[in-house]
């Protein structure tokens, strides 16, 4: 996260590849299910042997034996509807919820986040020198309407996407954050409204950032977990 500061996001998970390296973020939507970005994986049926999800820590490279760290192998991957840029990961076993690991709520189907809503992103990705790469960073962003967003992005923003306003200072997600949450505090609850997806440039000043709108795919998420 560029222009963020260290923080705590108990539903944000770290995806680890076979060498144990962090390569993307994810959001814990159920004890055994993580929602992330399809961009993080080479294909919908790649072998997942050795891929893990790490939770319960603020450090990108927690020391072995760090209290609260949970490492769970990824058992299965289900790609989202075409154009969703989403992937659901089924974990080999449910995680343990505690002070450091919590679920984030899903929004109602087709819910549209009102412009001006205050949201936050979280991730262990690139800070471009603006922060501490070794810990989880977060940044606050305000939602803007797709109409306003399309003013800058020349109509390219789809209804299945949503935007946050481009701030004067460079603030936003970057490589290594993809798949992580855009969480908005609504009715006394943190709700997963967006998924961080690669934008053409990270945290470009005065340039709205685009996220996948989760509410458009909530029916798919429930269906996968049910089936």
């Amino acid at each position: 996260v560029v222009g963020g500061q260290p923080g705590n996001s108990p539903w944000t998970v770290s995806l680890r590849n076979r060498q144990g390296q962090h390569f993307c973020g994810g959001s814990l939507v159920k004890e055994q299910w993580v929602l992330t970005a399809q961009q993080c994986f080479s294909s919908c049926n790649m072998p997942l042997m050795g891929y893990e999800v790490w939770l319960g820590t603020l450090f990108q490279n927690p020391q072995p034996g760090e209290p609260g760290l949970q490492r769970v192998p990824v058992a299965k991957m289900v790609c989202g509807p075409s154009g969703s840029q989403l992937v659901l990961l089924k974990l080999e076993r449910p995680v343990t919820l505690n002070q450091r690991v919590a679920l984030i709520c899903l929004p109602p189907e087709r819910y549209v986040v009102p412009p001006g809503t205050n949201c936050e992103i979280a991730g262990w990705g690139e800070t471009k020198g603006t922060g501490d790469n070794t810990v989880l960073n977060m940044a606050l962003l305000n939602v803007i309407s797709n109409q306003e967003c399309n003013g800058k992005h020349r109509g390219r923003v789809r209804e299945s996407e949503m935007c946050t306003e481009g701030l004067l200072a460079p603030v936003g997600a970057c490589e290594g954050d993809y798949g992580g949450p855009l969480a908005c505090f609504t009715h006394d609850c943190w709700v997963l409204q967006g998924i961080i997806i690669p934008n053409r440039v990270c945290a470009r000043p005065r340039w709205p950032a685009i996220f996948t709108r989760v509410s458009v795919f909530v029916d798919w998420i429930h269906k996968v977990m049910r089936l």
Partner: protein
Amino acid sequence: QRSPLNDFQVLRGTELQHLLHAVGSRPWQEDVADAEECAGRCGPLLDCRAFHYNVSSHGCQLLPWTQHSPHTRLQRSRRCDLFQKKSYVRTCIMDNGVEYRGTVAITVGGLPCQRWSLRFPNDHKYTPTLRNGLEENFCRNPDRDPGGPWCYTTDPAVRFQSCGIKSCREAACLLCNGEDYRGSVDRTESGRECQRWDLQHPHPHPFEPSKFLEKNLDDNYCRNPDGSERPWCYTTDPQMEREFCDLPHCGSEAQPRHEATTLNCFRGKGEGYRGTVNTTAAGVPCQRWDAQHPHQHRFAPEKYACKDLRENFCRNPDGSEAPWCFTSRPGMRVAFCYQIRRCADDVRPEDCYHGAGELYRGSVSKTRKGVRCQRWSAETPHKPQFTPTSAPQAQLEENFCRNPDRDSHGPWCYTTDPGTPFDYCALRRCDNDQPPSILEPPDQVLFAECGKRVTRLDPRRSRLR
């Protein structure tokens, strides 16, 4: 610090059955610590050619035969791994093949070999023993002939002839950087013996064979799992962690198995990406591949001729997750170029539907990835929640794509892939069909309540935020 296992080639989850002798009659030794100890027992014994290692009971069973012995058969097994002495199962020779114990019995001139136990038609001085392995009429090298294994021939006019068995070094050549090399050389270019990939000593390493199945990190053979310029291995010399192997390149005419190259998007890990994007996802310009500043690196373009390391374009020469590059910023060594779009790998849609496709009654019966649909009336590989009787209105006929649950993403089906319960179909929305906008909905979906949440964990109250 070589392991006794270095002399063996493993077949995981495999048992060797002997059709004439009940393998079970061979004694099991239950008091061994691990496969290495078992190898230590079998190695020195001339009549031990292989052994079973029981991964759960840590037992081992020494065997006087291999998969190439008569009346034997390999069998899948949940509890056993089969280790066979390399000299009996390798189909190429190391050095001059003195150790070769394979079953080739034809000379380079196509003449059948004479049995070593016979003195006719060609008399000779050799007496078969367990030690010299002069078995049957197999090619051997009892006199260390530099030409490799040979035999007396059954043709009186030709006393003996070489068998022309290839050296392991010549038996498999390198394409590109040898990522696909699956040969049997287990020595480095300095002659050091390779460490087994499934061992963590003398050198601990991240390349556990079970995590990298597609890399075939077999036994202690040279491989290139990390996109190095050529195959290498960890060595059994504690002073030398890893070293390249000396293997010949295939002729330039033998082109490597090329991923279909792409220009405007990347498929899979992007190893075939040949576009001209030259900034990282963070917008940082890439460093030229032929430059060593600000970052020194080993990816010299001339050493990776197949990888098209031109200028400062994003590439994936080492099998990473996506195209990447060294960045022009001293503080950031490498970064992915995730801003490059992934190529859509869906199959071409074969029909279209209106709305969400609840009324689609066409006969497309495959998913967007090309997997054939399961019949709605079938119960395998997936037990359906929707059947022709449970959802008569949806007309779930045959294995045609339908939308019995009004899925907003269109018609779908249960798939014949056991790993994928359901998927959307090779269909698209009809051109003249605009989905209702969610942005100006007739009624704003108000947020009544979110999902269940363990309140004591609410980060705000726990002051942990």
